């Protein structure tokens, strides 16, 4: 059970406070309800580029990191297709330093043209390092547009292409800030050994006078239901053929989300999973195989991916793979197998909740979903899943007409 208190400032900023008496550290976690899905299709990669710029100085403070480091702390951030999340970890007695820095950059940014130029280069190098200069690194740049035709999940957070980042203008960046970086579009979580009254006082002190702004309406083009099997083959200078089967799955707030999550575990999380045993261990068609979900807020993907063994064809793999999927659809997963998967989830959750930063991030994220207490409900949702649920969800998701297949064909370099 993770305890928390919740209050809202006059300007609409939602605040979660999580008390932990055992730690000398404090966490200040700020989630802005904006991600790559909120970008213009012609200006992609923006939410992420913007995250970089948030460290380039704010209206009253020329440099974000140095004062935090001077206070013994450190900071980082990440952008996903759904959200942008910033966090600071520092000795608890210096928490006001983090609040001062975070509130100032929520109030107004003041980065320079030089800062924009530098971060543009840094992000381009990130694009190269992560997506272009790694074997199979570009797969998600290809798989997303195959699986999504209208929803903005069709591009990755880094952007569709480098040119979008190259072309980013100062006025675009400023407009992005004005639209999304407001108290009304943010959730703050404070974690550490404090009293609630103190937290209310200091949060009000630093954030209370920031103008509320208007929470931007989110009207995204809905992805129409997929009705046909999609397939694309790309050639790449990689050592072996690889495959990515992507199935549409329910949105994050759906109860079926959790079922799809366990279903992916049953298929390919561990060495006792079905695909691993049948296709890797017994038939030796692959040298690696796994299944996982993207965890998206809107309709996400359940992905099965792996690499073919030498001299095995995509057709051989395809036949064996569908056999495993058809079995999960035809016969309910035995209770014993389901219990095994749930036990692993319980262990994983217990370890994840050990970290103060993890707890703070998860509370913030569940508050975005509608209620921070969701973090405490999750275990029950998993526990309530039955073999029947699994079979139903398997039948609705694991269908050819719901599948986008990306094949990477290895060619000699």
């Amino acid at each position, binding site marked *: 059970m993770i305890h928390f208190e919740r209050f809202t400032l006059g300007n609409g900023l939602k605040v979660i406070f999580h008390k932990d008496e*055992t730690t000398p550290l404090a966490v200040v976690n700020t989630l802005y309800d904006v991600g790559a899905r909120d970008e213009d299709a012609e200006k992609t990669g923006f939410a992420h580029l913007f995250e970089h710029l948030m460290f380039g100085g704010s209206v009253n403070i020329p440099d974000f990191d140095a004062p935090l*480091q*001077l206070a013994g*702390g*450190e900071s980082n951030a990440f952008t996903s297709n759904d959200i942008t999340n910033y966090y600071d970890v520092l000795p608890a007695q210096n928490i006001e*330093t983090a609040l*001062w820095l975070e509130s100032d950059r929520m109030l107004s940014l003041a980065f320079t043209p030089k800062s924009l130029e530098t971060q543009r280069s840094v992000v381009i190098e990130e694009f190269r390092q992560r997506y272009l200069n790694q074997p199979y690194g570009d797969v998600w740049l290809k798989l997303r547009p195959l699986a999504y035709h209208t929803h903005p999940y069709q591009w990755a957070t880094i952007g569709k292409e480098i040119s979008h980042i190259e072309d980013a203008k100062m006025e675009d960046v400023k407009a992005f800030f004005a639209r999304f970086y407001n108290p009304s579009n943010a959730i703050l979580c404070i974690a550490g050994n404090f009293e609630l009254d103190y937290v209310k006082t200091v949060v009000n002190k630093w954030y209370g006078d920031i103008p509320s702004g208007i929470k931007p309406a989110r009207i995204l083009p809905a992805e129409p239901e997929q009705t046909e099997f999609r397939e694309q083959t790309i050639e790449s200078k990689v050592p072996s053929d690889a495959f990515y089967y992507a199935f549409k799955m329910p949105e994050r707030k759906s109860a079926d989300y959790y079922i799809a999550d366990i279903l992916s575990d049953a298929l390919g999380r561990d060495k006792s999973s079905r695909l691993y045993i049948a296709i890797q*261990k017994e038939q030796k068609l692959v040298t*690696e195989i796994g299944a996982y979900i993207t965890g998206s807020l809107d309709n996400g993907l359940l992905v099965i991916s792996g690499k073919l063994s030498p001299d095995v064809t995509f057709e051989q793999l395809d036949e064996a793979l569908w056999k495993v999927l058809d079995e999960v659809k035809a016969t309910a997963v035995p209770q014993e197998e389901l219990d095994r998967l749930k036990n692993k989830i319980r262990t994983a959750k217990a370890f994840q909740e*050990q970290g103060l930063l993890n707890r703070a991030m998860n509370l913030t994220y569940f508050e975005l979903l509608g209620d921070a207490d969701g973090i405490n409900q999750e275990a029950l949702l998993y526990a309530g899943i039955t073999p029947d649920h699994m079979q139903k969800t398997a039948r609705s998701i694991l269908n050819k007409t719901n599948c986008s297949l990306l094949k990477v064909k290895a060619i000699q370099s």
Partner: protein
Amino acid sequence: MTTRNTAPEIFPLQKINFVVPHTFDITPTVKLYWMQSVPDETTRIELHFDAGTIRGERKIAGFVNALLLSGTKDKTSTQIHEELDSLGAFIDHEIAQEIAIVSLYCLRENVESAVNILLDAIENADFPENEVSDMLREKKQNFLVSSEKVGVLVRRAFQKQLFSNSVNYSRQLELSDLDDVSIAEMKRFHKEFYLQGLRKVVVVGNLAPDYIDRLIDAVGAWSKPGNCEFEGDFVNKPGRIHIDKPGAVQTAIRMGIPLFNKTHVDFLDFQVLQTIFGDYFGSRLMSNIREDKGYTYGIGSGVAESSKAGYFIIATEVGKAVTEETLKEIRHEMDVLKNEAVPQEELDLVKNYLLGQILKSADGPNAMMDLYMAAQLHGKDFGYYNEAISHIQQIDQERIMELAKKYLNWENFSIVTAGEKE
């Protein structure tokens, strides 16, 4: 009105409350360390074996490590994994030059059953032929994939340059190692370095004391007799080499020198110097090469320690067109530290940052145990970190410059680049 243009007051680090783990002698040289004070249901158990990559002939330590849970006379690999998964247990086996560690993560209620399965699997590991061939096939594939990464190519070549006088420490996996593996040789290795190679046991979990006694009884027979032998006094090959990787859009750079570990008198002060130079987000290398020039997504330095030595490295991946400029700037930053005093403001910032890092690395029972073990490896205890805190508080600009002059000498560095030739 809140005053936003002046920073809030900063309060200094308070005393860190170190929690010392209980220590049990399994033998005079093999110990079990137990952190009992855990406020939740999690349990972590680690078995440390003298079975690192420097042991044995050729490159078989990694194969044996990978096959530890691959089956016994009575159970297949799948049975072992199903049993462990049923208990919600996670197993990690990792290998480094001087150590192989098997870790178990599970909930308290399942520890005893999970440990029994794990110990049985390790004790009776039988290296079945089909498992060996699966492992080799998977390793070969992984090797080929990782050989496409400039970051991996540069690391392999760098290890050879850095440990140039040691066959065992410079040894890298080659594709040919995967073609000729003898099961008998693996069995011999398993017997010598696992079943008689246990160096220590680490337990973090709120378990019953009598269980710790039973655990000691269960693994005691694996204890390594006598001390482990390790090499030190490494000699590197200074100068530059390049590994060609046609088509790479970035070049990986890795450079370094042999150095020392916590037992050396300069170690703590060098940590301050190298943090300023390259080991935090505001470091000289990051400020110049990322934040000013935009050549890279990241650049950093660090000190790696081994039993009898250590080394200092600098690593980055940069746009291929700016490789030479990056090297020039790294050299420039070394020269600046040798010739100009670090501004007091920057030194104070780094001191506070490092003190905050120590506080962070002592947060929670698992972090506390890791911190203790990092000191214990070099014969020290938590007193070492108190010593570190006072060193950090006292170090001055002169000492930083003195150490920069002593250690940051470009001509001593092994420099390796991997990427497309210009």
